[in-house]
């Protein structure tokens, strides 16, 4: 059976593709988003129009985009991977130039009503390009130093640009996202061991650089690290957010304080409660039961993605699915770990739940790729 044969014969075509969508994944995504709407109503003090309503429209648009992308066959994605990467890279350079002219840390380009954040798009493009690369690269060369160096450069080039924006969080996400694809592609574990060791060394160097002429991070980034290490040292300053978040989370108890009854969120002790700290609101108002439910739904999403990837014999499609779901996984686990005080506060949204258009659109675009990979899997 030739590649062309089964592609044509056994892959659904036209509108019939809709029946071959990964429907459990669609419903799981909708369920998580619905929890998001509920929490946005709560943090708006019961008003739907403040945050929940615009978010619903965005989500609806995102669903349409996801399903539309699911119809696009894999050869197109394989073909677009290099131009997409190059485009994103150029946009990042452009943002850097605009940012230099304009304010200190501009991370976006305004195109009419859409605020384009190239670093977000780069997360998808990078996964796409690396997946295509490892699809093309023969298996025996995967761990060869030269063939490892190429993806490392592909990852570090945009990471470097994002880092000088400066956006440490997105840089880490890019490295981690690319790393996941490399890991899934089978690059020798030794490389990862070396990178982790180097990472530890780098962290040590960065911390060492503080207060010297060659300081590697901005002062506020150092303060975040301080706050993480000891939030109580400055309870009304930088540590305030984390302390209040932990209080809110813990006070939720087993079953929570009830919808719109969380004192920490209702009385504004919680900061950024419609974006970065929305998980805290959920945990305060619906308790351990509510928080675990959301964590369960997320885990199921990852589970369905991984199952789809593992059962996909198209290496490119499988790597895309693993890469995108891995990025998604990083998103929610970093956000949750942050609000629980396990990671330094870094201002990341909770995927599909936090209020905000860009991150939602990028996520739905990513899930569109996952769906496309699922629909067009070789049978």
């Amino acid at each position: 059976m030739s590649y062309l044969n089964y592609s044509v014969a056994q892959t659904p075509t036209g509108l019939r593709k809709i029946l071959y969508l990964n429907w459990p994944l669609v419903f799981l995504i909708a369920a998580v988003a619905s929890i998001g709407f509920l929490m946005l109503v709560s943090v708006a003090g019961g008003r739907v129009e403040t945050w929940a309503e615009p978010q619903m429209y965005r989500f609806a648009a995102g669903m349409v985009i996801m399903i539309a992308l699911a119809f696009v066959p894999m050869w197109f994605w394989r073909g677009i991977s290099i131009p997409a990467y190059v485009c994103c890279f150029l946009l990042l350079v452009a943002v850097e130039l605009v940012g230099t002219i304009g304010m200190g840390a501009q991370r976006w380009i305004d195109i009419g009503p859409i605020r384009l954040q190239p670093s977000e798009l780069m997360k998808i493009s990078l996964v796409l390009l690396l997946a295509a690369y490892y699809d093309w690269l023969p298996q025996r060369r995967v761990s060869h130093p030269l063939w490892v160096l190429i993806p490392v450069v592909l990852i570090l080039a945009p990471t470097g640009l994002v880092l000088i924006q400066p956006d440490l969080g997105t840089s880490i996400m890019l490295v981690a996202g690319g790393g996941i694809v490399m890991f899934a592609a089978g690059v020798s574990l030794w490389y990862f061991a070396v990178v982790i060791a180097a990472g530890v060394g780098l962290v040590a160097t960065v911390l060492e650089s503080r207060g010297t002429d060659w300081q590697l991070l901005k002062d506020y980034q150092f303060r975040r690290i301080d706050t993480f290490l000891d939030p109580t040292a400055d309870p009304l300053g930088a540590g305030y957010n984390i302390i209040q978040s932990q209080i809110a989370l813990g006070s939720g108890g087993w079953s929570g304080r009830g919808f719109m009854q969380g004192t920490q969120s209702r009385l504004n002790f919680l900061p950024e409660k419609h974006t970065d700290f929305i998980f805290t609101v959920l945990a305060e108002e619906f308790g351990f039961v509510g928080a675990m439910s959301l964590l369960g739904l997320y885990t199921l999403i990852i589970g369905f993605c991984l199952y789809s990837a593992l059962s996909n014999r198209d290496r490119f499609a499988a790597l895309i699915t693993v890469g995108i779901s891995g990025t998604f996984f990083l998103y929610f686990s970093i956000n949750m770990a942050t609000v629980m005080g396990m990671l330094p506060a870094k201002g990341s949204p909770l995927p599909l739940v936090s209020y905000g258009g860009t991150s939602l659109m990028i996520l739905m675009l990513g899930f569109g790729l996952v769906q496309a990979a699922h629909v067009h899997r070789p049978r």
Partner: protein
Amino acid sequence: MTDTPRQNDGNGRRIGRRGLMLAGIQLGVVTTLALKLRSMQVEHAEQYRMLADGNSIKIRLLVPARGLIHDRNGIVIAGNEQNYRVTLTREEAGGEVEPVLRRLARLIPISDARMAELLDEFARRSAITPIVLADRLSWEQFSSIAVNAPALAGVTPESGLSRVYPRAGDLAHVLGYVGPVSDYDLSKIEDPDPVLMLPEFQLGKVGFEARMEDHLRGKAGQRRVEVNSAGREMRQLSRQEGEQGATVQMTIDARLQNYAAQRMGEESAAAVVMDVQTGDILTICSSPSFDPNKFVRGISSPDYKALMNHDHRPLADKTVQGVYPPGSTFKMVTLLAGLEAGVINAGSRFYCPGYTTAGGRRFHCWRKGGHGTVDAVTSLSHSCDVYYYELAQKVGIDRIAAMARKLGLGQRHDLPMSAVAEGIAPDRAWKQARHGQAWQVGDSLNASIGQGYVLASPLQLAVMTARIASGREIRPRLVRAIDGVQQPVPDFPVLDVNPAFLRVARLGMDEVMNSATGTARRSRIVREDWRMAGKTGTSQVRNITAAERARGVVSNDQLPWERRDHALFVCYAPYDAPRYAVSVVVEHGGGGSAVAAPVARDILLFALAGGLPPLDAVPGDQRDAMEERHNAMHLFTPEAPRLTRA
């Protein structure tokens, strides 16, 4: 057909193995997150819940209503009134306060200066701090603001209780007043009640209000409120009202006090009326007075300056704080000391040629020509000085001082008022201690007629008179009942003075009023059942110099006011069954018989009559003048006594 390299099984397996490893790592992370959630939300939930409550639940104190003060008839003399005020919170006004203030200025007057002051304050203070725009609004103003509230964003009409003294100046000195707690007040109090920190709390500053603070304050209530992160109150969770302070009933008769104040008019004077049997102070009135309500509201600087610079010293309480040479009102003390010592008896006589010589100095009687032969009774009724000069040389100062103390002079009577003076009943030891000098015979002569070192307050003179009249060791009291519980009248011990001698003194005081030659005959009461006994006193503020005596400038009218003599009078009635003792001091008033006696008599009559003195109680030629005086008075006529708690 063969598989292309891309779809070989080897590749698929490889992704599978790494995919499973990835799944394992991710599952590990999820498990870690879940365990952390469990630790926080299940194991340590209680601890976090307490922190959350500590964040959002605050206890706010409620100022208790201050206890009322009633007079002996249940008339409220210190009460609480609703104080209507409006506050504005910048945050609720949408950040811009000026348009709101301009709109408010159409409802209540806000001067341009005040407007500028307010805008300045808003700029300085936090956006969530309510700032008082106007205080003590009328009900009309308050309700018009309440009705227009929708157009006045951020404006909150509030009402609270504030102290009010319905009798204004009548009782200003005895009651004192309340005011906001100052840092100085706090520094004096150990472990202050937290309610003192509330800005609207009023603390007794002086007088009865200060001395009875513990009874009047009450217990603060509590409100549990939920606050947001900015400290703004969101809602009330529970409210427990405080306990009002005890209602304290004083022995004061507000109507009598009012009459006394009116009778003294603008004179710089003091009057005390005491119940001879119980020691109840019915009136303790210092004139001129001031409006204590002004102090509660925060007195303006010009008003305060006017009070401070007034030469009649309205802020001083002349009844207990003011001490005066008692002059001839002291003669009962010297007489009783002589009788008790046995150096004279009631029939002993002295000859008065108008002066006597002692220690190489000449001491004059007030009557230049002298009184001739004088006995104990006529020494009082004629107020002969020479009699007492002679007596003093026989009895000695120490026995006079001892008698003065027995009669209540030279000691601090414990009344709940501010700055109660001790006065001076001088003796040898006192002079040695105070001035480091030996007592001279001339000192005794001066002291015998209540001059020299002797000083007494009007309160002490009233106590002295009550003790002579009753023969008991009467002590004054101001508190009649606390929260409806009557304070017991002590069983006053019999005075350690031979009753026969007291009768001589009383007879002399009776003759002062009722004998044909008595010095205060003009001020007698003609109704026999209210027969009055009294004693005049005129005390020199300074010595008359020999030069003045030579020039003949001794008449008070020719001296500046502040150098004129003090006029004093003490009296009691009825003579047979004494009920009330009165003392009156008119500062720089001139002669006791002419100035102080009529005032004391009228006050005594009001007390006896329980109302406006009947005209037929005074000698016929004075009735028209008395009626005229009464018509000119703005007397306090209470409606039915109000005993309800406000």
